């Protein structure tokens, strides 16, 4: 028995050395990468790489490589650094606008196929070239670029909403008939990367974009929004009777509120006529108002709610009109249509023809439940 024990232990000891070792000092950990097209139609990858070397001044370096495939480009970049590049902590992949418009399906393949790449990876689109975002001066941002970019996306990801669009969510939406994905657009403002807009996709191809101010209209429809700031600019006329006299004369009433809870539900009203109802419910906590306002009067608050509802509704209608022009179904009306269809099957082509003809009524319900510590 003792012989056997010794044998077992020695095999365990020797066999364990068969595993390849990966020492932290020898690794370059890719935290984010950008995908561009070169003029020769080759893929150019720019990566922000974390390295753990005692004598280096900056923890990250920017490396780039060119190849005809993603993995090939990473390999090419790997020859320019002394470490082995590993994708195990890849957090963000940015596609240049040009690439996104051509379709990003080919680039998603390796992300899903390679088990080493985490599913918590987020996708984004660059305003122009993806590599510009990586080649910024580090003085403008307080940390390294990889962490900074991930931080931009982070708030949404905790709620599993935009702008945290994970690889799995994106590819699920591509494969799902009757819903199309969105992604955040990252651009540079005064040398600092910021989220500037919302990229609207049709399957895997980017078709159009909207400014980031419209974010809430999409997140409300995506799921339950909690603790999110939202800004409204309302015309002044409907409020004149609730404004104390002599408190300024701006043309617009500006309001900042916190969405305590908000969500949207789509209902199919009439299957033949393609009539839908979208019911949006928002509970607001007022944080800032540009003029003195009689907030102690319930009627005044009701008036405020009414105006916000009116504005939100017209915004939604404008967005849908634009989406219909692009023929991308971001809100997922097709999905609702499919669930109400017999057999539960819907082809892309069928919905492409039907989508521009859908008729949606937006019912927005706004509740201002709190307005802070003061009344006026």
């Amino acid at each position, binding site marked *: 028995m003792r012989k056997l024990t010794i044998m077992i232990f020695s095999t365990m000891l020797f066999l364990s050395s068969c595993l*390849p070792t990966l020492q932290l000092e020898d690794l370059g950990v890719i935290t984010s990468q950008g995908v561009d097209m070169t003029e020769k139609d080759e893929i150019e990858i720019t990566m922000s790489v974390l390295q753990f070397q005692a004598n280096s001044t900056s923890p990250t370096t920017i490396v780039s490589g060119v190849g005809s495939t993603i993995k090939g480009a990473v390999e090419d970049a790997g020859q320019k650094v002394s470490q082995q590049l590993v994708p195990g902590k890849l957090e963000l992949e940015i596609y240049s606008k040009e690439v996104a418009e051509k379709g990003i399906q080919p680039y998603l393949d390796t992300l899903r196929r390679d088990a080493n790449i985490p599913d918590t990876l987020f996708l984004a689109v660059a305003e122009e070239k993806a590599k510009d975002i990586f080649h910024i001066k580090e003085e403008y941002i307080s940390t390294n670029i990889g962490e900074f970019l991930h931080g931009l996306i982070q708030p949404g990801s905790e709620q599993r909403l935009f702008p945290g669009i994970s690889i799995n969510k994106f590819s699920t939406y591509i*494969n799902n008939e009757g819903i199309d994905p969105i992604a955040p657009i990252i651009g540079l403002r005064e040398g600092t990367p910021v989220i500037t807009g919302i990229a609207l996709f049709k399957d895997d191809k980017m078709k159009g974009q909207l400014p980031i101010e419209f974010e809430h209209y999409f997140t409300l429809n995506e799921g339950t929004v909690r603790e999110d700031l939202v800004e409204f600019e309302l015309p002044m006329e409907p409020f004149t009777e609730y404004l104390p006299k002599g408190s300024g004369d701006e043309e617009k009433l500006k309001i900042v509120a916190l969405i305590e809870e908000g969500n949207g539900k789509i209902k199919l009203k009439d299957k033949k006529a393609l009539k839908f109802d979208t019911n949006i419910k928002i509970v607001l906590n007022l944080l800032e108002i540009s003029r003195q306002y009689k907030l102690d009067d319930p009627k005044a608050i009701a008036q405020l709610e009414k105006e916000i509802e009116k504005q939100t509704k017209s915004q939604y209608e404008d967005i849908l009109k634009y989406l219909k022009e692009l023929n991308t179904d971001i809100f997922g009306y097709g999905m609702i249509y499919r*669930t109400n269809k017999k057999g539960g099957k819907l082809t892309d082509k069928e919905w492409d023809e039907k989508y521009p003809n859908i008729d949606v009524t937006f019912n927005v319900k706004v509740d201002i439940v709190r307005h802070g510590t003061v009344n006026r």
Partner: protein
Amino acid sequence: MDINVKVKPNLQIRAFYLFFIIAGIQLGVGIIGAPKFIFVEAERDSWLAILIGFLFMCVVVGVMFFILNQYENADYFGIHVDLFGKWIGKFLGTLLIIYLGASFLSILMTYIQVIQIFLYHALPNWIITSLIMILVLYTVFGGIRVVVGVTFIFFIITLSLLTVLYDPLLRINMYNYLPMFQASFPELLRGAKATAYTFAGFEILMIIYPFVSNKRNAKLPVYLGLTFTTFLFILITMLSIGYFSAKGLKNIDWALLILVKSASFTFLERLDYIVVIVWLMVIIPNLVLLMWAMAYGMKRLYKIQQRKTHYLFTGIILIAVNYFQYGHQITKLTDFIAKTGFWIVYIYPLLLLPIVLVRKKLKSSGRSKPS
């Protein structure tokens, strides 16, 4: 060869442990990839298909209990010899042992493939196999009680893995389940058949039953074990359907592992690596129970020492794994096991039932004549 087994009291186990034995052997590598196979057949109504599979399984287990209760203390090997005579009986017993060995190989190969995809791409099969076989041998040398103990402890430990599924649960898309009840009955049946590989394993009951000390209480834990597996299976399948798109799920080999990939903590970035490794604890009960059953069968049929079978089989496995280098070979092996398993595990007891009944009648009439 004795038809009935005399088990020493120090080798007996309580009926309560049958729950862990049944659930432990059913939960293995099958459940990692199963959602895909059921979804391909039954689409959104996969849960119905699994329930049909469950009901059928309950009927089969009921039949198994009925057959077992016709004997004083017999198992498959004894019953075969009793019904078909020495030669055919032993032949059938040997076929059963070969089936157990093949499913052992398919479990091992599937797990090795998962390790090679997720962790170590170039690690040769035989190294992983040696490391796993050390554990397996170490366990089975301890005898039946150690085997059952390992099944029990690993089952309890691995239950905590379920908590990782909270993250995909929050991300599911409810509309993926609608509209319900669209699959036709044949589709549901095909879906139920696709559960065969995952649910297989409860045939161990026909081998381990003589070791149960309080047989009167054996039924409840077995049925509870089946229910538990079914519950888990439905949970994972429904999660996969909600989490992936319909088109996507049909192309995903390891749905459960991809589900786990989306969870991440600040102190633990890649949970999937941990799950892949901890999954060894899920398959070890599978492997040791099968190994024990094989060696025990050899002892019953041919009076070969169990230790010798262990060594011999380990040698065969160590050679056999090197022939599986391609993904499609493993898929083929698994398909083959799923197909033959369906007949051996599910249909065979039903065929055995009338024979046992006729035999019983003959016996009782033979006995009543002299009186």
